[in-house]
């Protein structure tokens, strides 16, 4: 409960700033609409107003500032508008039994979630196996690690279309597989780095101890290195799953996909529906928050049990 106050304070600050930003962002559109509806605006004419600053416009036409908060297609919607749109496309549709219609964000989030989980699983496997190779082989340490780092310097937005083109050339139907690959591409890296650190966490005397038992390499991996790496693994997985979600959404953007949160964002952009963009963005953020929280709880329970603290 003590943590709640600072969180709410920051949240309140963000919402306040957001509301303050809405008026200057939307005032031109609001004035244009008001003028078309017959109101007198100073200065007259949309073109004239282009050279006047938004704050000047707000001061001169203060009676129309309210309208900036209630536009149908605002440049920047208010939090309340986003919330209402979000509810309209999720809870409301679920209540009407249409949770999985293609107008529902639940449906699109589900599509994105599936790819995210596949990408997460793939990235986790690649990351863990890569880490084991790096820790146990000097050659892998020197050759794999630089490539892993280089891979993360290439913008995924540039790479995503190529992955989709290549996989369609290879005869892979649908968008699921390339999306999962793009997602795994972002997600394997934190897992790899965390696991390398985790597998190397036992200190030399602990490894020496196992040597005095004449333990095999496999035994020291299973009994010491692997359990010692688990706290590091969980931390990496939390970063990894958020990266996997971003990867999936990026994978849905450039390719004319019709379903998934990324597709919603793109469609909202193309059809000038900012509310759709914003609600899809928030749906993605909520989804990421849920996934990370789920992993966090798993971590607490698993590690707490492991050390007898829970």
């Amino acid at each position, binding site marked *: 409960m003590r943590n709640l106050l600072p969180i709410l304070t920051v949240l309140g600050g963000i919402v306040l700033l957001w509301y303050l930003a809405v008026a200057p962002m939307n005032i031109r559109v609001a004035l244009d609409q008001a003028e078309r509806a017959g109101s007198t605006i100073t200065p007259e004419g949309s073109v004239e107003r282009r050279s006047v600053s938004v704050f000047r416009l707000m001061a001169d036409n203060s009676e129309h500032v309210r309208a900036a908060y209630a536009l149908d297609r605002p440049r920047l919607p208010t939090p309340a508008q986003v919330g209402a749109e979000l509810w309209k496309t999720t809870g409301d549709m679920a209540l009407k039994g249409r949770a999985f219609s293609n107008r529902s964000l639940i449906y699109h989030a589900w599509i994105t979630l599936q790819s995210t989980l596949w990408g997460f699983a793939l990235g986790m496997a690649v990351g863990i196996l890569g880490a084991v190779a790096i820790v146990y082989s000097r050659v892998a340490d020197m050759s794999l690690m630089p490539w892993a780092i280089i891979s993360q310097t290439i913008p995924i937005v540039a790479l995503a279309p190529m992955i989709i083109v290549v996989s369609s050339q290879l005869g892979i139907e649908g968008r699921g597989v390339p999306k999962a690959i793009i997602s795994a591409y972002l997600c394997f890296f934190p897992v790899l780095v965390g696991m390398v650190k985790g597998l190397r966490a036992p200190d030399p*005397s602990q490894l020496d101890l196992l040597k005095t*038992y004449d*333990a095999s390499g496999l035994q020291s991996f299973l009994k010491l290195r692997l359990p010692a790496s*688990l706290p590091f693994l969980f931390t990496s997985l939390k970063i990894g799953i958020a990266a996997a979600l971003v990867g999936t959404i990026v994978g849905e953007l450039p390719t004319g996909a019709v379903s998934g949160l990324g597709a919603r964002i793109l469609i909202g952009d193309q059809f000038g529906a900012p509310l759709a963009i914003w609600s899809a963005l928030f749906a993605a953020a909520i989804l990421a928050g849920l996934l990370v929280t789920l992993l966090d709880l798993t971590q607490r329970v698993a590690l707490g049990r492991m*050390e*007898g603290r829970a």
Partner: protein
Amino acid sequence: MQDPVIQAQNLSLTFQTNDGPVHALKDVDLTIEKGDFVSFIGPSGCGKTTFLRCIAALEKPTAGSLTVNGLTPEEARRNRAYGYVFQHAGLYPWRTIGGNIRLPLEIMGYAKSDMADRVQHVLKLVDLEGFEKKFPWQLSGGMQQRASIARALAFDADILLMDEPFGALDEIVRDHLNEQLLKLWAKTGKTVGFVTHSIPEAVYLSTKIVVMSPRPGRITDVIESTLPRERPLDLRETPEFLALSHRVREGLRAGHSYD
């Protein structure tokens, strides 16, 4: 006369470093008989830990010969000749005390039923009965170190190698553990190799005190203790004890350990 448990002849170990060779051990000769309690004392860099690690086959000597139970250190290790206790207990935080003691037994492939008996047996030896299901964080530093000794005893090795096992503990706990260690030694009849920085600890515990000096690491004196086997803590105020301590200090001085 039995064969010696540990025999080193002209044993040398040189580490090649970027600043030239470091003579960690040079021409070390030492014989340890069965049932001896041998302390290695000397300043940092005198090679006492290195010597212990050579016995355990954790380091490889570069010259000379070293046998453990008449075998090479590697063979002796495969025969489970020794249990090793490090300065830090190094218990796995994710295993209970019992689980930690089972670790070597699992690796060596003991039967499940045998493991349970052995865990009970060694917990009793180190006075930790009833702590089997506790986790390391629930134990004090001294108790953790006792658990790590129990772990080294679990598989019936005849030799117990201890590398400054009580170095990280405070003096009161240390006194107590020294007393307990002597009792344990009397009960089990093991051969003990014990590395320490502390003169009173070395004199109090040992039947044989090996005084070592650095640059190069070598033995400057081997003192056979004249103290009786039965050793209450107040033995440390007797003239005999002080005389032995004095001789150890002289040995350290002769090796320029105080320079």
